[in-house]
């Protein structure tokens, strides 16, 4: 128990226990210094460096265990505790700010040690009863992440092991991209405009499905050469019945809106269709492919 008290202020730091056979760990000014403190083999000049290298009490404890090639699973608590407390004593001697964590660990070690000395609880309490178990677990856990940190440090990383490759871009002018439009935005706009226009209350409502509207445009485009086209060529049988109906409705609608004219010379004679809507080119020419139609297209062009 005296070790546990060691870190307290004013105590002589080194109880000087028996020697251990270990390699010197530090070389200061070219000399391996083994003198003081003997059980630690670390000279005062080097101690500072060493202590700075420790990442806390667990790290120090791991170091002590590893240095003696001990299995972490089988810590000789008494011995380790003694060394650990010696270390803290040295730290204090060096007027190191003694972090609370080190003192807590010293207390934990002392507690474990004292409990080891006490009679064990009955067997049915299980193996958990070993007072070292929790410390071992913490040490193991810490060691995993200590290793993980080293592994991360070994990864190829930017600046140290590689650099980004880049090429010069002679012209960095900014390309302008049209805005994104949400379909809902458009529909809401439509709703507003229709409200304003009182569209619903007037004649303007169309019965036809929108596909007819779309097809009207398609048919007009097909007819944009201002030639007469055989009626049946406007249909695509592969579309099936629905497609044919849509085309048919669109032709009727176009005729109603006087955007096309439909010509048939005689009953059961071939039907021809021609756009009355001048094509974008606006040739205004009205060449007939067939000798059939004469006066039929009178009202236009």
């Amino acid at each position, binding site marked *: 128990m005296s070790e546990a008290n060691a870190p307290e202020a004013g105590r002589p730091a080194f109880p000087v226990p028996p020697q251990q056979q270990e390699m010197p760990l530090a070389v200061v000014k070219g000399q391996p210094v083994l003198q003081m403190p003997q059980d630690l083999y670390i000279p005062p000049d080097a101690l500072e460096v060493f202590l700075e290298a420790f990442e806390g009490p667990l790290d120090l404890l791991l170091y002590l265990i590893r240095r003696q090639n001990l299995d972490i699973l089988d810590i000789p608590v008494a011995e380790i505790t003694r060394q650990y407390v010696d270390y803290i004593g040295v730290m204090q001697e060096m007027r190191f700010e003694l972090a609370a964590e080190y003192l807590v660990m010293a207390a934990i070690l002392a507690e474990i040690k004292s409990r080891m000395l006490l009679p064990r609880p009955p067997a049915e309490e299980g193996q958990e009863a070993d007072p070292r178990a929790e410390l071992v677990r913490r040490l193991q856990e810490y060691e995993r992440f200590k290793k993980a940190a080293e592994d991360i440090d070994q990864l190829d990383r930017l600046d140290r092991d590689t*650099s980004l*490759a*880049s*090429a*010069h*871009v*002679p012209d*960095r*002018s*900014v*390309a*302008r*991209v*049209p*805005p994104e*439009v*949400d*379909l*809902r*935005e*458009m*529909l*809401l*706009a*439509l*709703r*507003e*405009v*229709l*409200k*304003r*226009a*009182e*569209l*619903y209350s007037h004649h*303007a*409502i169309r*019965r*036809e*499905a*929108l*596909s007819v*509207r*779309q097809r*009207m*445009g*398609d048919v*007009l*485009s097909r*007819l*944009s050469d201002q030639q007469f086209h055989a009626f049946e060529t406007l249909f695509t049988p592969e579309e099936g019945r629905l497609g044919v109906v849509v085309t048919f409705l669109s032709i009727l609608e176009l005729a109603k809106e*006087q*955007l096309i004219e439909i010509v048939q010379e005689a009953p059961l004679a071939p039907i021809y269709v021609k*756009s*009355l*809507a001048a*094509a*974008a080119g*606006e040739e205004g020419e009205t060449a007939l492919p067939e000798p059939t139609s004469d006066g039929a297209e009178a009202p236009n*062009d």
Partner: protein
Amino acid sequence: MDPNLIRQIVEAALLAAPQPLTLAQLAGLFPEDEAPPQGSLQQAIDELREACEGRGVELVEVASGYRFQVKAEVHAWVARLWTERQAKYTRATLETLALIAYRQPITRGEIEQIRGVAVNTNTIKQLEEREWIRVVGHRDVPGKPALFGTTKAFLDYFGLKSLDELPPLAELKDIPELEPQLPFDTITPAGVAGAAMADDTPSNDEAGEEDAAPEQMQ
């Protein structure tokens, strides 16, 4: 020293450096006792330049040294890395687009009639440039006004197979309002709606009727 290694070092250095590098700067990458042989750097440069054939970058010499740069042929694509979204479409544009979609083929005059205000030429041009609308013909009335329809690109953009997939007008009332952060114009939606109602007839009731009517459309 292996010429391949020298070439690799030169290539990597030119691609890593933010600035062009001179031959002297390249030579400075090698320790003094492992200096590249006379002429080997220039040779590496020449080889690297030739190796750019058929690639997207080229090695050029400029006043301050050598550098890799993006070839002019692919610049148009690469430039899109630095794109700037144009401002959102105005309400007028969206209304025009919607009317063309639902009422095609339609002339500008007809759009104006429904909207009650003139349609800016730029609005039409904007939509044409986007290739969402096109002229499908001209109505045979004085002035031969163009008839507009929507394009396949329009359908593609909105993920529609055909115009049929646009919601029928009857469903418009069910569309939830957009987030307040996405106003059509600079005016808040509420403000617009309110103004519109005030302008256009005292017609809350009518709005109800209107909503009911389009069911005939199908």
